[in-house]
């Protein structure tokens, strides 16, 4: 099938004026948007810049705005988009070049919620045991690949980048509700701050954008409730 691919271009070393380049491509309906970008880079314009690594929806490198909504280019099929495809960088993070954004503000917020396991008890001889039910409590939020599709789909984050954003809260949720972790209170105190969960206006864009289908708004609501009640069950 023939498609028209419209790609956002920006090169700060080249005058810095953003523009859209149009490419007319002959593609297979089962091709992914990433395949189209590879085709453009290989055969039409080698200067096109974008991030990609595993190309199989695991590394979270190629989140971009495709036809107005955040998706992973490696998981989005051409046949689901129609014959005109517009590809733009994710919103709310500074664009470095073409489809590449500066992810540092995103990772700064991520680090603030202490996304690592904290347990000051001496390690047991074998392992820290947990029942299947205790493990299931935070299973959904373990799936995050830090692609930033959720945070950069959030209207609150667009207006004010100091908001931690959905991804940071999801990763805090993963440890807050882990029965083996001992720093839930500390994390809840961090998320109760001005830049934390109360900035969430439940617009639901994050849940719709997540390529791993994490129920993000639900996870944020659970964190809000834990802050209010102190109940981690």
């Amino acid at each position: 099938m023939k498609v028209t691919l419209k790609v956002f271009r920006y090169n700060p070393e080249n005058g810095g004026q953003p523009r859209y380049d149009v490419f007319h491509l002959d593609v297979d309906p089962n091709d992914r948007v990433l395949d189209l970008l590879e085709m453009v880079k290989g055969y039409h314009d080698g200067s096109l810049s974008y991030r990609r690594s595993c190309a199989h929806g695991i590394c979270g490198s190629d989140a971009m705005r495709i036809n107005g909504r955040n998706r992973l280019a490696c998981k989005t099929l051409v046949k689901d988009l129609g014959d005109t495809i517009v590809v733009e960088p994710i919103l709310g993070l500074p664009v470095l070049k073409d489809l590449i954004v500066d992810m540092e503000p995103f990772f700064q917020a991520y680090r603030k919620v202490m996304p690592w396991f904290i347990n000051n008890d001496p390690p047991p001889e074998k392992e820290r045991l947990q029942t299947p039910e205790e493990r299931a409590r935070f299973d959904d939020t373990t799936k995050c690949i830090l692609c930033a599709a959720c945070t950069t789909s959030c209207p609150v984050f667009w207006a004010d980048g100091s908001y931690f954003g959905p991804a940071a809260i999801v990763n805090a949720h993963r440890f807050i509700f882990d029965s083996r972790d001992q720093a839930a209170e500390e994390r809840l105190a961090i998320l109760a701050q001005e830049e934390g969960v109360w900035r969430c206006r439940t617009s639901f864009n994050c849940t719709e954008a997540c390529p791993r289908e994490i129920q993000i708004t639900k996870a944020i609501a659970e964190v809000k409730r834990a802050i209010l009640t102190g109940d981690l069950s």
Partner: protein
Amino acid sequence: MSDPKTALQGYVRYRAVGQVAFLLHRLTGLGVLFFLIIHIVDTAFVYFVPELYEHAIQLYRSLPFMIGEIFLVWAVFYHGLNGLRIIIFDLWKPEWWEREFAIKSVYWVLVISVLLWLPAAFTMAKHAIEYYSGG
């Protein structure tokens, strides 16, 4: 990077169902607030500038105002219902923030708000037509 310009670009160009409810909630809220402000101002005219009050009442009888009031009723219904949806989901049933159910709830709120609005819209439109056809 995040700023009002980025936010505006997102509001206008980002495509998601949840965002429709998010934007309508804010637009209807601002609309109702704007109407309340002018209503408080014109009612205050009775005391402060009585001759302007008569003029304000005439303005309310103008066609654009009558049409605007019909949509105001929908704005009140929508804002109230969507607010209830968010309160129930957030405070009572966080598990309802599940992808398919939450998206369906956006459509349901739209449908219910229109159904509640139709009788009032019909009555108000009938009144406006009668007023302008000399009835």
